């Protein structure tokens, strides 16, 4: 693998960029692997990387039904933060945030991790009370978070509509300065490149169509490109988790919904941070290219079409105009949808299953991007050791039976 650096860029620039190596090479599925990861999104690629790097498991493959990173990884608005309410959530999301910080360097790929700060606005006392509760919980959990009053909000993000006359006046906000955004595609490519470099096979256009289970234990999988033998399978397929689950005979606490997002035309920098509002129901950041990146709630219905209904976009934009009336003359450039896997408690599943050797990672819903490194890290550990570590343990499937949910609704009422 050619190392990326300012100097290699300079050198290649002088030679016409002929010397760059592929980030990964297409692999043909081998007849057998030590472990197979289904799903080449952010979480799948991260899982493979950590399996190879930290557990030395390199005879493994990622099988992806389409193009690598073409699922929610390609579609998400990349909001990264770790100021979750519950201990279990703080643990995993903050682990992720710490990993994000050095990830570009570790993977030798600039993932444009921009710690520009995430504001969660409060528009009434109840929201303020909830945010303060969360900030306090964060602080005691060692997670960075602070409260800004209205004046400080206006200073931090001067373009927010601060009029007390508006329908949803801004009375304050929680701020996580180390939160931010990154470049989604780059994250997938970076993990894939690093995993490939460690020997992982990356197989695109390979759809898993069935699981081979013998005596309650996984023995391989069927794909549209043939059968692969393997003692360990990790399903990391986001919106398609139930589909793979069904192949193992499992009904899961997951529903797949469209989640839509949109971008405006590019403009010069105007929004310095990420602004989120539960009450107004929208959030907005600005990409390095200049587009405003905007998202909001899921479509209520179940769907696998990667499309939603336009009224959701209309409401999203109306909501953004409530927060930023100056955006009204800007233009919508593109809107799209992804399929998100929603769990009843708005928390993920990282779990063993009744089928031995079959592991599930899913249910990340509208907010799993930010967890990518930690999710891959924890799942790799689970696959390697067949036991959940402290971070993964609260996210077992059992919690739906025992009632020990990690109900992050309150903390995540707006999709992101």
């Amino acid at each position, binding site marked *: 693998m050619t190392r990326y650096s300012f100097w290699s860029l300079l050198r290649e620039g002088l030679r016409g960029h002929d010397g760059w190596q592929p980030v990964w090479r297409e692999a043909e599925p081998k007849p057998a692997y030590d472990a197979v990861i289904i799903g080449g999104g952010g979480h799948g690629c991260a899982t493979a990387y950590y399996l190879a790097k930290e557990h030395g498991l390199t005879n493994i493959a990622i099988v992806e039904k389409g193009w690598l990173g073409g699922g929610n990884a390609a579609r998400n608005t990349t909001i990264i933060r770790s100021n979750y309410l519950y201990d279990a959530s703080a643990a995993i999301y903050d682990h992720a945030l710490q990993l994000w910080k050095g990830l570009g360097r570790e993977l030798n790929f600039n993932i444009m991790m921009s710690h520009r700060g995430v504001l969660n606005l409060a528009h009434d006392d109840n929201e303020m009370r909830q945010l303060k509760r*969360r900030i*306090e919980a964060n602080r005691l959990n060692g997670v960075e978070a602070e409260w800004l009053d209205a004046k400080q909000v206006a200073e931090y993000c001067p373009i927010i509509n601060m009029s007390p006359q508006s329908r949803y006046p801004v009375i304050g906000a929680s701020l996580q300065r180390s939160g931010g955004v990154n470049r989604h595609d780059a994250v997938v490519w970076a993990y894939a490149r690093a995993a490939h470099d460690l020997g992982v096979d990356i197989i695109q256009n390979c759809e898993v169509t069935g699981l081979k289970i013998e005596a309650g234990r996984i023995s391989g999988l069927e794909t549209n490109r043939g059968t692969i033998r393997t003692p360990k399978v990790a399903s990391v397929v986001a919106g398609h988790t139930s589909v793979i689950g069904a192949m193992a005979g499992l009904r899961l606490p997951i529903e797949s919904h469209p989640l839509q997002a949109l971008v405006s035309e590019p403009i*010069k920098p105007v929004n310095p941070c990420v602004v989120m509002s539960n009450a107004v129901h929208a959030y907005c950041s600005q990409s390095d290219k200049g587009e405003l990146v905007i998202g909001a709630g899921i479509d209520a219905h179940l769907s696998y079409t990667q499309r939603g209904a336009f009224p959701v976009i209309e409401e999203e934009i109306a909501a953004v105009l409530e927060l930023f*009336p100056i955006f009204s003359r800007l233009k919508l450039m593109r809107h799209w949808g992804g399929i998100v896997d929603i769990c009843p408690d708005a928390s993920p599943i990282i779990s063993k299953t009744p089928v031995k050797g079959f592991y599930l990672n899913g249910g990340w819903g509208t907010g799993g991007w930010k967890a990518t490194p930690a999710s891959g890290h924890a799942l790799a550990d689970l696959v390697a050791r067949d036991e959940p570590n402290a971070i993964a343990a609260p996210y077992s499937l059992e919690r739906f039976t025992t009632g020990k949910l990690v109900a992050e609704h309150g903390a995540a009422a707006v999709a992101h």
Partner: protein
Amino acid sequence: MSRQSARRAQNRLDHGGLVDRTRPISFSFDGKSYQGFAGDTLASALLASGVHHVARSFKYHRPRGFLGAGPEDPGALVRVGSDPATMVVNQRATEVELFDGLEAFPQNCWPSLRLDFGVVNDLMHRFLPAGFYYKTFMGPPGSWMFFEPFIRRAAGLGPAPSAPDPARYEHMNRHCEVLVIGSGPAGLAAAREAARSGARVILAEESAACGGRLLGEAEGDALIEGMAPRAWRGDVLAELAANPEVTLLTRTSASGYYSQNWVTLFENCTDHLPPSEAGHLPRHRLWRVRAAQVVLATGAIERPLVFHGNDRPGVMLASAARTYLHRYGVRAGSNAVIFANNDDAWRSAFDLHDAGAHIAAIIDTRPDPAAAHREAAEAHGIGVRTGATIVATQGRGHIRSIDVAAFDAGGVTGKPERIACDLLCVSGGWSPNVALFSQSGGSLRYDETLAAFVPDEARQEVVAIGACAGDFALAEAVSRGVETGRTAAREAGFVASATDPVAGETRDAALPYRVTPAWELPSNLPKTRIRAFVDYQNDVTAKDLHLAVREGYGAVEHAKRYTTTGMGTDQGKIVGVNAIGVLSGVLDKPIGEIGVTTYRPPWRPISFGAVAGQHVGGLFHPRRTTAMHDWHVENGAVFETVGDWLRARVYPQPGEDFEAALQRECRAARNAVGVLDASTLGKIDIRGKDARSFLNRIYTNAWMKLEPGRCRYGLMTNEDGMVFDDGVTACLADDHFHMTTTTGGAARVLGWLEEYHQTEWPDLEVYMTSVTEQWAVASICGPRAPELAADLFDDIDADPERFPFMSHASGHIDGVPARVFRISFTGEVSYEINVPASYGLWLWRTLMERGKPYGITPYGTEGMHLLRAEKGFIIVGQETDGTLTPVDLGMGWAVKQSADFIGKRSLTRSDTARDDRLQLVGLLTADPGFVIPEGSQIIASGREQSPRTPMIGHVTSSYFSPTLERSIALALIAGGHGRMGERIHVARRGADPVPATITGTDFLAGLKEAS
């Protein structure tokens, strides 16, 4: 006309086109003034004055001119207007219509269009290929934070607006039988035929005028149904205009094609008008059309060729040059070269020649252009080079000359020859405009002969016709239009003639379309120097696509994302297919196997304003007010929003602050009479012989024995066992109940009841109807409330002995019907008085007047919150957050064992039944003056630990209690019910934890015991 502009308008012909030469219009661009005519676009008017260079590209800041003549143009982006509230950035000069006083400015350049420092990016381009940023700036965590602002500032196009938009926008919903999109010959014919059946037809045309290519081509000897094309167009438009069932929309783009033939149309109502003429029209309108049948007649888009130096101002699509000529009467150059791989483009040479331009050369990449064309070229004295390509171009802000050379599969073969020119018309063939067809879910197919993607299978009720379907011949467009218009009307249930002959012959002025694709053309220059642009806006070159493939980003979606091809404001309208063509060459894979990237809405950028419509500002979300609202306003209330309701929160008197007012109000309620506007509580009338058993299944507590005349408090849980609403329900008669819910939960609860009734227990005889707003509610409470009540009621005995707690009565107040509930949320004797809402204000005024002798004092929601906290009552949404069971809240007494209810089974799950769950308790701080901030976390010890401190709970409500004259708080604490009297600590940022003692939740009970 000033001398300067007279000289500059040199390229305007003195006749032809749709511009009105009797209506000159002055406008300015980049600070200089110009003149154009009514009917011009900014692009045509600037071209008329010889201006080509109007913009800078996204990344390398290269000069950009007009490649196209419509919405497909990728480069000529300008800012229109200078007022920070009304300026619009990233407008396509090719679409901006002129009006008097229009001001336009270049953007993405500094300090000026001509001298732009951003050009350093261009000079550095070797080091800034696609995705260069992924390979560098990876120092320690802070390093990207250092570089990012520079990248951000260099990127983006226009500046962000800085003041709120004064314009209005709106939506328009429409249903029609046939929606025709595009008004070229195909669309016009389809719309006319469909409309003749009596069906409702909407014809949407993006441009300011209908006609499509008819407006952009010379008429020659073309005929449509026996008429000259423009005359035919006039007739059809007149017929459509006269039909009341036809809606003809110009300046209206179909922007999105969604499920079940729901199509959005974006109408520009006033952007083309000077502000003084806009009247009351909205600026933009978003039509939301549900069509039984959709006819896509969106035409085709010409694409350029990919060769070194193909991006200079003065390089123009061959068809755009004809459009400027025939539609706007503008000759885009006086010395032109035509460069193409198909026969169609040759027409530009002949038309420009006829308009007086010199044609320096026609260059065709094919060895075998149409013989008829070659003869005509010879006749016109135009030099032709076949099997040749342009290997380089010259000219800084505008093309000056080109180098042409012969080539074959191995590359350039001949010696380049330089030819001077001021206009280079390029054509790489035509791509049917399939964006909407693809959005509709239809599949595409690569057609080898057309070298383009064409609509394949439709998935909705939609038909593509004309150039959009790959039928490039005029006769085909018209006959398919006629046929499709008729079928569409018939499919929608209308009678349309199957056989009516058309009036006469249709024939083209053009030769049959023939193209031989040449996706990437060679140059004799060293590879490192070649820059053949594919995406003109985002500055993606063919080399970038090669790099993408070399690095493994060869899948079309990867290539798009790695290089940003087609991700600009034009969304690759012109260049999409070229990129695929180049990829196909590099990968040596057929184009059909490479496929297209996903077409997503909108087809063209549409304003946020239009998308939001009227639903912004004061009309964003409704604000609901009670019948007593005016009184609250008149009496200085400050408000809070609860759900969508505005509720009076406190009534500060002159000189009083919030806290003082609050304390006064609460003291009054404890010592005299307080009155609260409780109208917003949800109310549901429930009736039927099974109403009782229904309630028994809905509420966690028992309802079978509640007697008429009595009330009961109840909790509702979801199937997960978690509390989601509470309230008091009164039994009016054995089969008749009046339920109340929380303010915010009213709609949800009614929905919940209906859902369970209709889907789980339809056998139960019960009906429910919302009566929330039928009743205005004033709740009086306090020791003197019975006296006031006695004064008030005509026919209800108010004595608490005979009208006891948790009962209700119906009667009158001054003849006005009233329902009165003896329920209390404060611990004081209370009467919740319901009157028909139209009497609400009267009731309130009456209470204030009659209550004077008893010291009546209105209290707001804040007082209500405080008073109930003193009594230890919960507020759903404040004490609860969807994770608490009745048991957690200390209301195990409200959980019946006798029968099932929604959520019951969940309460006994192993983790739900644990007794170390968070449980509701009271807290008293050691320092009675210290009011704990709500939301504070509770820890066990008096010192925080590092790196993390375990939390055992948090504070949900906290006040200074006027009754106890000390602070009180409600909190959720792990295993709290078993920890009475224990000392815990409240953590604080930047200060020591505060000690407090766990108590019961009813602080008044403690008071009573003490006294």
